């Protein structure tokens, strides 16, 4: 499909290297303009079921991944969500808003070519530099805020997984015992490959294994996880003021990616069955 074609966007003309005034082009073109986006080339988006799973149809064409594999997802709800992403594109296609599609493509293509063990290792490695374990000593207001907001999550994780994690104010970070890492490794091994891609993605976004696990275990909401991940930024915003085009922009992007990752994990690791109870007379 579109990815199989040659690269779509014309690269912007580089700014002239000559010193002095910038010459105006014949049509008065800007030195830099954002690259032209691919227009929406399809009318209808629909879902169909194939042998491998659910597929997305853009008009009559089947959606393919960047490596030209057929785009197949195991879950119908996930296929519906991806179809909604494609359907919600107005005139131009904005790939940076299509997080679920990107996640599915990553799971299907595995461009970094990591196997399950490597993915789990990458995920658990984050524990050594987990955000909620790194504490400051000053300013005291921030240290207090970290203690009040992050301690409950760490305690929850320690109780839920029966491990020791702790926190640290030193630059080296907390000392995570090997048994803790092994517990997380064996817990993550229970997820399938697709769900693991999603988990690793969420961990990379939130910069915290503990927050990601509490999100995936449904202990906190996405908004709360993002807030805890950005705790120091929120503290500074409250102190110095909010800059919409930077802070809100980053906040919305982080929320979108984290929500997409979490939804992806849940939709890839569930199997729903409807059990009908007998009606009592």
């Amino acid at each position, binding site marked *: 499909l579109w990815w199989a074609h040659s690269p779509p966007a014309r690269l912007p003309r580089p700014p002239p290297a000559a010193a002095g005034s910038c010459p*105006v082009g014949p049509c008065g073109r800007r030195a830099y303009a954002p690259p032209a986006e691919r227009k929406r080339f399809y009318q209808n988006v629909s879902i169909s079921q194939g042998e491998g799973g659910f597929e997305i149809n853009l008009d009559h064409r089947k959606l393919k991944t960047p490596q030209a594999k057929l785009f197949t997802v195991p879950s119908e*709800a996930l296929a*519906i969500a991806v*179809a909604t992403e494609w*359907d*919600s594109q107005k005139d131009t296609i904005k790939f940076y*808003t299509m997080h679920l599609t990107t996640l599915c493509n990553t799971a299907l293509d595995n461009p970094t070519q990591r196997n399950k063990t490597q993915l789990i290792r990458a995920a658990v490695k984050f524990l050594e530099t987990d955000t909620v374990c790194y504490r400051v000593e000053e300013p005291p207001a921030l240290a207090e805020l970290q203690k009040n907001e992050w301690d409950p999550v760490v305690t929850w994780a320690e109780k839920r997984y029966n491990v020791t994690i702790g926190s640290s104010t030193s630059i080296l970070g907390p000392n995570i015992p090997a048994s803790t890492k092994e517990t997380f490794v064996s817990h993550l091994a229970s997820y399938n490959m697709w769900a693991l891609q999603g988990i690793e993605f969420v961990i990379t976004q939130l910069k915290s294994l503990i927050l990601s696990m509490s999100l995936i275990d449904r202990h906190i909401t*996405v908004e709360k996880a993002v807030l805890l991940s950005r705790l120091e930024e929120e503290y500074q915003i409250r102190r110095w003021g909010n800059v919409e*085009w930077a802070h809100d922009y980053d906040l919305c992007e982080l929320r979108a990616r984290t*929500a997409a990752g979490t939804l992806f994990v849940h939709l890839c690791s569930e199997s729903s069955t409807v059990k009908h109870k007998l009606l009592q007379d």
Partner: protein
Amino acid sequence: MAALGAPLRTLRALLREVRHAAGRSYRDSPAYRHVLAAFRAHRVTSEKLCRAQQELHFQAATYLCLLRSVREHEALHREYHGRGERSPQEVAGLVGFRLPQQPGGKG
């Protein structure tokens, strides 16, 4: 369990977001029908704390967060980051100058 609030509130907000995403014929869109069907299917239960219900509510809240933040992010991008650089004429016009038409600064 996460503090989620009332499921009805989440459902209404989610349906509103799906309307935004789907456009004119939102009621026929697969997302709208799927969300409604899922909520209806989980409504009838005799248990007080139904795990499947809570899971569905959490999923709905997560999807709502996704749709809402994508919409807000796109709006912010359009407003602040979507316009590229100003042309030399615009930059000159910011301080009230005009670019010269002839080399050497005359005219």
